[in-house]
């Protein structure tokens, strides 16, 4: 099987869907002639033509609005945000139009809004955010955050085929660092199903996106000390796999909730509430969060390193929790 990077896997997934379904088209800034800021859409203009790979002015509101309109007319647009930080400019079209049209009037809005998010590449406060919770808190949307290259391809294909608006977070740190063997067959990964990234018995680490790799690194380290971490990769946040979360908590009895997003209002808070509500009597220790602090993402490399969760911080939290 060919080995593809995270980025190549996404490109291949979009490519296959465009070949399969003529109603799929791409729209965004610099995605055609330039091939996208991170080159996700490289070669697409040549292959599919300017009608299906549309370069736009710098106006996220217009891009998303055009996509919503096209979706209502039966198309399946895939919107690229050059950085997910800029999605804020298209916010109204997403939360008040795309998310509510089906509820309010009935028609489906099958759009995908995808783009790079996350920190770790010294991008500073405007090119590093993990802002997925803006949309997790918006009923009517789906929010997908893959960690592996295999999942990235399977989930982008599932997202394009989904009849709901999907916000698809690609972690830029993973783009060229993560590689997987990608099978040739036309597979999809279902939205809303978590994955046991590593099976363990003592502490369940529940996470998503780039932090899955951080958790796995910490698990390697803790194993040498006799503490067995289980790592759950949520893969989607809206909807998310509550059953998988509770099952892992019941198995391990202790839980660390890990994300790169900042602390207050992060997904860990929601998970903590659900675990307390539904698995209280299975808990053998406090529910522990490992997250970024509540500040903008710093530009300075030492500060960014201090800001982001890493394997060392997760391992420290796991040691404390194991001894509790």
């Amino acid at each position, binding site marked *: 099987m060919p080995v593809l990077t995270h980025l190549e896997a996404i490109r291949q997934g979009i490519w296959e869907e465009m070949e399969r379904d003529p109603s799929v088209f791409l729209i965004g800034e610099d995605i055609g002639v330039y091939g996208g800021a991170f080159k996700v859409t490289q070669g697409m203009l040549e292959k599919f033509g300017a009608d299906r790979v549309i370069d736009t002015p710098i106006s996220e509101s217009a891009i998303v609005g055009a996509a919503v309109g096209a979706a209502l007319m039966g198309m399946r647009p895939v919107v690229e945000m050059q950085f997910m930080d800029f999605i804020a400019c298209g916010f109204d079209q997403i939360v008040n139009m795309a998310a509510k049209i089906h509820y309010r009037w009935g028609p489906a809005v099958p759009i995908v809004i995808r783009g790079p998010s996350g920190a770790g590449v010294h991008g500073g406060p405007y090119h590093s955010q993990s802002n997925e919770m803006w949309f997790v808190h918006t009923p009517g949307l789906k929010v997908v955050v893959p960690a592996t290259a295999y999942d990235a391809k399977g989930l982008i294909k599932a997202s394009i085929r989904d009849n709901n608006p999907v916000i698809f977070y690609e972690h830029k740190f993973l783009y060229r660092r993560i590689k997987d063997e990608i099978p040739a067959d036309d597979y999809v990964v279902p939205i809303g199903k978590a994955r046991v990234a590593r099976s363990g018995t003592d502490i369940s680490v529940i996470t998503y996106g780039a932090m899955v790799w951080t958790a796995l690194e910490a698990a390697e380290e803790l194993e040498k000390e006799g503490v067995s971490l289980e790592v759950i990769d949520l893969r989607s946040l809206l909807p998310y796999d509550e059953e998988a979360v509770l099952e892992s908590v019941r198995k391990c009895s202790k839980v660390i909730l890990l994300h790169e997003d900042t602390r207050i209002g992060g997904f860990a808070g929601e998970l903590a509430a659900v675990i307390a509500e539904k698995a209280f*009597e299975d*808990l053998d220790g406090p529910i522990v969060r490992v997250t970024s602090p509540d500040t903008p993402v710093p530009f300075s490399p030492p500060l960014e390193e201090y800001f982001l969760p890493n394997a060392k911080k997760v391992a420290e939290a796991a040691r404390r929790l194991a*001894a509790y």
Partner: protein
Amino acid sequence: MTNVIMPQMGESIAEGTVTKWLKKVGDKVERDEPLFEISTDKVDAEIPSPSAGVLTKILVAENQTVAVNAIVAEIDAEGSAASAPSSQPAASGGAIPTPPPVPAPDGDSRARAFEPVAPPPAPAPPQAAGMNGGLGTEIGGNGHKIRSSPLVRRIAKEKNVDLRSVKGTGLGGRISKRDILAYIAAGPSAPPSARISPASAAQITPGAMPPAGTEQRASASPSSMPAVPAPEPSPMQAPSVAFTGATQVVPMTPMRKQIAEHMILSRRTSAHVTTVFEVEMTRVFETRAQNAAEFERRNGQKLTFTPFFVRAAVEAIKQYPIFNASVDGDNVIYKRDLNIGIAVALETGLIVPVVKRADEKNFLGIARTVADLAERARTKRLNFDEVQGGTFTITNPGVFGSLFGTPIINQPQVAILGVGVIEKRAVVRNDAIAIRPMAYLALSFDHRVIDGAMADQFMVKVKTVLENWSEAVL
């Protein structure tokens, strides 16, 4: 200050009546000491005090009915009310409280049960009683709090482990999952701690056991009898089969719990035997068919088969009064009133409204009462006294198609009649095969006081009445 509330004594219960205050304002009360008695439409119960202190206010007078969770009294912790009221020994008051009937499951309470009722001279620091000690902390033998976790406390409860004997290796001596699992694996779990003190054990009279957990007067007992302490059921050792698949834990509703306790109690109390008779329903069928329309027009309710069975049971009980009795120690108590309970299935459980003095009613009276009680049982509008005082019970598994069941006796009664589905069957009449409406009737009886021959004679009478039905309905 602690508020004392009207407790919820069953899921469908919305209100309760304070029937008697066992303490008066100014009296000292121990935690879990009986404080007042209530009646609801499910149970009569003595309510224990939620905390130790001095009863400072009674807000609901005797015989007053209030909603569940209404505040009925206030108790001040001892420290804050050590002045006037506590200087006055409670024993000098009029209300002499009965001894604490339900021993709390810890060692302390045994000693407490033997103590005189008068308060100790100095205010004792309030002691948490066993697992009920608030936020999961227990007082260990050395006076230190035992720290654990929700999971550990759940395992301790399930495996009947006294956490005071488990060594904690977690942070600050906290008992972790690993600690309690190691403790359980290390050997036979601690012997089931003496949950019933010797004194109260001696008072237990088999046969008049009220459901555990609440103090319920057996309706047969004269009210002058001392309340019988509810025994803690000895812990059942369910086989611990390891199931590793996904599970979901759903706590029982209060009504479910009460049914569960009552059923187990009945199984352990009576020597259940079931005898099954087949009854031809032709006459009953015809009688009902002739009168159903008129009955519905006049009463607005359907004429069911149940009143026929009530009537037949009444006739049989008149002939064999042991079926209207209960067992109390070495005595058999025959009841003069003939009150037939009718089991009614609800979405969340079941309830048994009672046709009072069914022997004094004609058929029409029985039919109307049954229809009315069943309707109000389903809409949860039964009054308290309408579910009390049954002396014999009829249950009807046949409504769901069952041929017959082996019902469990509704304690403290001694028999229960189950009615199977009524359906046309091929039967032999005069050496020919005939098609007749038939039903199986199953009688479960308490072999302690009723022998098989007696039970079968009773059933012959029931069968005879039904097969030769001769009463005009209207």
